[in-house]
């Protein structure tokens, strides 16, 4: 179908103005969310970590996870970098220290319990909840197994039980939410011999981290990872070397994940709900206008045609009458003329008796 340029621009303006005048979606992040007040977190100090894997052992025990392939006191598994998987909520990786090649550095990986989690934002069945205690918990009963959370997580933490045929779950650290609700420590924190893991209120942990950096500036990189990354996480990290060297992403920025998609997602109701109605309405009105205009113009045409015909007939009859009249007059005139001629001829005849006497009688035809 061909629409005029004007119409197209008109539709565009209608759709566009509805987009502009509507309010931006408040996806929980048009203010800066600094966590529920009093929410807990964990500070992981990689300088104090000795890579003993006690945290992995304890996590496995506390969460009733299946036994690993290699026992937890086998430290050679750290020669390869691992990631969290369906059987391990947390793993410890070993990295080489560029300054002291003989003393490796360690890093514990687990869910960072972001203040504004990407997994919770991506999940359309609300399987993830950011609890006021700080933990991001997972509800397996509503999960549909789409694994959008695994795609959304910038730290690539959630793992999936691919081997489970009928009830696979997304597996990730829970910050031992049941335990901390009872006032206990998370399993990993309790097991750590050097207190490389510290548990407490997130703002207190930030103070602790800053104090450590202040006291020992040569030991620590002056940055607390997780303070603002991805909008802030409940799991904070301290390191002796740039965080890149211990396998952590430094390119994430400080925007929370939900805020990245808030704009687009906020537009969905408008695009899906408002625009069809609005644009269909405009279309319908236009179409109706067109129809009415068409019928009106048809009527006008017919009317004009009738008018014209009437006029023509009138003119014709007038012209005909006129013509008749003229004809009659002309005939009359001729007759008159002929009569006059005849009378004249007769007169001449009478006077012409004495002459030739060849008087021509002019007939009508000759006149």
């Amino acid at each position, binding site marked *: 179908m061909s629409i005029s340029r004007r119409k197209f621009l008109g539709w565009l303006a209608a759709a566009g103005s509805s987009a502009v005048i509507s309010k931006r979606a408040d996806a929980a992040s048009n203010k800066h969310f600094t966590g529920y007040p009093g929410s807990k977190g964990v500070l992981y100090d990689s300088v104090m970590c*000795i890579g003993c894997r006690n945290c992995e052992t304890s996590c496995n025990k506390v969460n009733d996870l299946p036994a690993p392939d290699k026992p937890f006191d086998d430290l050679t598994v750290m020669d390869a970098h691992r990631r969290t998987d369906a059987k391990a909520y947390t793993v410890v990786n070993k990295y080489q220290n560029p300054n002291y090649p003989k003393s490796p550095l360690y890093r514990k990986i687990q869910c960072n319990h972001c203040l504004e989690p990407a997994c919770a934002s991506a999940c359309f069945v609300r399987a993830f909840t950011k609890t006021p205690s700080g933990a991001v918990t997972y509800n397996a009963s509503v999960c549909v197994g789409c694994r959008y959370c695994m795609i959304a997580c910038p730290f690539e933490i959630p793992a999936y039980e691919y081997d489970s045929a009928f009830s696979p779950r997304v597996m990730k650290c829970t910050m031992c939410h049941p335990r901390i609700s009872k006032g206990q420590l998370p399993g990993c924190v309790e097991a750590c*011999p050097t*207190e490389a893991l*510290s*548990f407490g209120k997130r703002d207190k*942990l930030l*103070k602790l981290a800053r104090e450590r950096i202040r*006291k020992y500036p040569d030991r620590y990189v002056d940055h607390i990872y997780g303070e603002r990354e991805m909008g802030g996480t409940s799991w904070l990290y301290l390191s002796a070397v740039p965080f890149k060297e211990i396998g952590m992403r430094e390119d994430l920025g400080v925007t929370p994940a939900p805020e990245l998609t808030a704009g687009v997602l906020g537009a969905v109701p408008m695009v899906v709900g408002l625009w069809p109605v609005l644009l269909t309405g405009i279309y319908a009105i236009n179409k109706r206008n067109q129809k009415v205009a068409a019928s009106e113009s048809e009527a006008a045409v017919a009317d004009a045609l009738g008018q014209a015909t009437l006029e023509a007939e009138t003119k014709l009859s007038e012209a005909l009458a006129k013509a008749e009249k003229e004809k009659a007059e002309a005939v009359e005139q001729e007759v008159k003329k002929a009569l006059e001629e005849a009378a004249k001829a007769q007169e001449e005849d009478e006077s012409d008796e004495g002459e030739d006497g060849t008087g021509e009688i002019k007939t009508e035809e000759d006149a």
Partner: protein
Amino acid sequence: MIHKRTLRRWLGIITLASLFLFNSVAAYVVTASKGGKAAGRSDIITIDTMKSFGDLERPAVVFYHEKHSTAVEKKGKDCTACHLSENDRFSLKYMRQEDEASEAVMNIYHNNCIACHQETAASGDQSGPVECGECHKEKIEISSIWAPIGFDHSLHYRHAKAQEEKCGACHHAYNKTTKKLFYDKGKEGTCRYCHKAEAEENRISNKAASHMACIDCHRKTLAQKKTAGPITCSGCHNPADQELIATVDPVPRMKRNQPDAVLLKAVGKEQKNPDLVRMNSVPFDHMAHEKYNNTCRACHHADLNACGSCHSLAGSKESDNVKLEQAMHQLGAESSCMGCHAEAQTDTRCVGCHSSIPKNRMKNLNECGACHMTDPTGSAAGSGKLDGAVIADALLKSRTLLAGTYAEADIPEKVIIKRLADEYKPVELPHRKIINTLLNNIKDNRLAGYFHRENGTVCQGCHHNSPAAKKPPECASCHGLPFGEENIHKPGLKAAYHRQCMDCHDAMGIEKPVATNCTGCHGKKA
């Protein structure tokens, strides 16, 4: 003729394809490794004289000096082949005394270098480049292993002896009025006091000065068939050759009329008012400290006078506004007393305890008296009754330089740590052995000995945050549950035990027991 539409299509395809190709080729280009395949050289000179005339049109030339000096030597010539001499002093520049116009300098280089190269090539020897791009190279494959060299006590002693203690052979000063160099007896200092890294108005750079002075003298001495120092680049600047330089050990003390003991007073040239001086003067063992550094410059960074001559109490323009207090106490500064002492704490024998002690000298103000000693004779603060050196000497002698220890019977041999024994058995800590090791480490060090002179100071390495005592508190007296809201900075007992031991072992480089070997310290409970 190709149809217009076909032509356009092909152009489009080629543009897109080339975009992809050019972008992906960059990913495959491997930048040349900076390390270089050839072994490093110590004689690399970058000829960028033309920089003084403006931006360089071509890359600076990389020149291997030793290659040329050996080649020139082989031909029976000497330094004069390239270096003009004037008044028996060599010009460090190539074939010229001064840099005149840019065109002239460029021509000097081009004409002379290329001519010599061509000559050498013509006579059949291996020669250097003659084409533009072969000298003006963008990428240099050979890395530089040039190492700086300076005088330490041993080298200076050897030179002084060779000159038969005639210091004026090297040391000079400059008279601004007569505009002449002269020998200022008694005021000899390092060349670096005047000759800085960059050349200044009427003063050559340190690099030029050292090359002119050192190489010239060596060359002349060698010409007299005597033993002398190196005249090649690598002889001084190649790390391997530096190892071959003979050292005298022990070095006899340099004779520069320096004091044995000094009483550091704040009153001096800058600070004339003795009333403003509130702290006791500090007796300083100058003779002992001479041995702790390779050069005098470690402390005498600007001249060989007393610190107080520039650093007044409130700072002066001469001292760059660095106050006396900073000059003496600034941590992290190499020339300050405390800075150097803090550096000494990073020795492997000391660092086990000292790495975890936060550097906060304001913590214990009673310790100021360790240096700012009260003079028992009552004439401290430079009242002038007795000579400063005499007072200082007396104060220094009154010091105990040995670490204080308790009687062996008072130091428990083994300490059983069983408070948290749960999965593991109690720890049998070899307490006395550890203390003896620490005391052994302190034994030969006067600095350590003095600061640990009081009994119980050594104990405070582990029994910290409490007064020194014969029976210091146990860890569990202060450390309990972790993560207390009020005590967020204090580790819990388990971490206190583990961190205290592990941090010390880690800092001191003790390999056994490994931190991750739990049973190495406490056996597992059955």
